[in-house]
């Protein structure tokens, strides 16, 4: 049985997928995950999940973000006076997301 492993580096971080392990049950999966994925990189916590239990939808089936122009959803569309610091920070994140989607 395959178990997917998610590692959290430090308390407060997100658990991010880092690989998987073969194991006959949850207890062994936790042990193997600890040995394989928790030893070298900084680790605060691991989640292990049976691979069968992971649902997936990918770009073959879905058009993430839709098919029409959604620029009205983004801060950088609205050019107004310089924004407050935390609004600027949000806009930078949105611009970065736009770049990663290849829309810039």
């Amino acid at each position, binding site marked *: 049985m395959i178990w997917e492993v998610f590692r959290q580096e430090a*308390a407060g971080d997100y658990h991010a997928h880092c690989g998987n392990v073969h194991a006959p049950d949850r207890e062994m999966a936790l042990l193997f995950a600890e040995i394989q994925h928790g030893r070298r990189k900084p680790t605060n916590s691991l989640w292990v999940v049976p691979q069968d239990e992971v649902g997936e939808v990918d770009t073959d089936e879905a058009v993430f973000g839709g098919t029409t122009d959604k620029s009205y959803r983004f801060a950088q569309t*609205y050019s107004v006076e310089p924004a407050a610091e935390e609004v600027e920070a949000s806009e930078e994140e949105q611009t970065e997301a736009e770049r990663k989607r290849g829309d810039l």
Partner: protein
Amino acid sequence: MTMDVEEVKRRAGPREFSPADDLPEEYRTAATRMLEFHANSEIMGAYLERPFIRQSPSLERKLAFSAKVQDEIGHGQLLYRAAESLGIKTREEMLSDLANGDGKFLNCFHYPMTEWEETPMIAFFVDGAAMRRQATLKQSSWEPYAHAMDKVCFEEGFHVKHGESILAELMNGSRKEQRLTQAAFEEWWPRILQFFGPTDDQSTHHDFAADVGLKTMTNDELRTAFLNSYLPKAETYGLEIPDEPRIRQNDDGTWDVVEDDLDWEEFFSIAKNEYEPGLGQINARKEAQAAVEWVREVLDDREAMAAGGHTGQAAD
């Protein structure tokens, strides 16, 4: 073993505690109170703005308002999840408390909003104030709260700038538009000043929430930061700041708001869900919730069926 309150205070720091920690009831209750209030406010704000998907004067504004309302409902859902993970109240309990008038939410969302010229008062000033606060909550000690704020703050920049863009458009519009916008500002400005509540010495819940790291800034600090950014902006767009409530900037950059100029009787009756126009808001949402009761029932049936069966294909 359950952590005691002293240990929680000692360890308190950004994103320090997660559902894996056995936290004392005092912490979990205080965090639930904050999160439930925040989640309820997202939902009630969405209902306040929803009519403007229809009332928007252009297709662009319509699209933006529908995206924004969708975001706000999503924020509510994220926050109910973060609240539920404290083990004090379930999402169902919080949603039905909101419907039956027991759930508390932000003062500004108790007032009806009917005119287009009012929309930037919420979408620019109230979202701006909320964003100021939410940016600091990324440092909350309850990790699910901080994680929810990562996503919320990512989305909020659009809300605030869209609101500002409406304000800019109106204040560069016809004289009638400018006059109506100024009137809306005068009506909403005292409510916006009350967004951060009364000054600290009257706030009962702050000390504990700050001591255990649930929040990192006082209401006074947040109000000051908000006024530093948003008061000049109001002036930039040609809005006249009303003479009352009197506000004055001190030499150290902080602001004094003359509290006697604000209607605290109204504020506290709102806080208790006893303010008449606010009840209209609560009941309108209750009716909307009841109208889609059948959808939740269908979903619950499917969940029960999936739990009983073996296929695990409930999402087909």
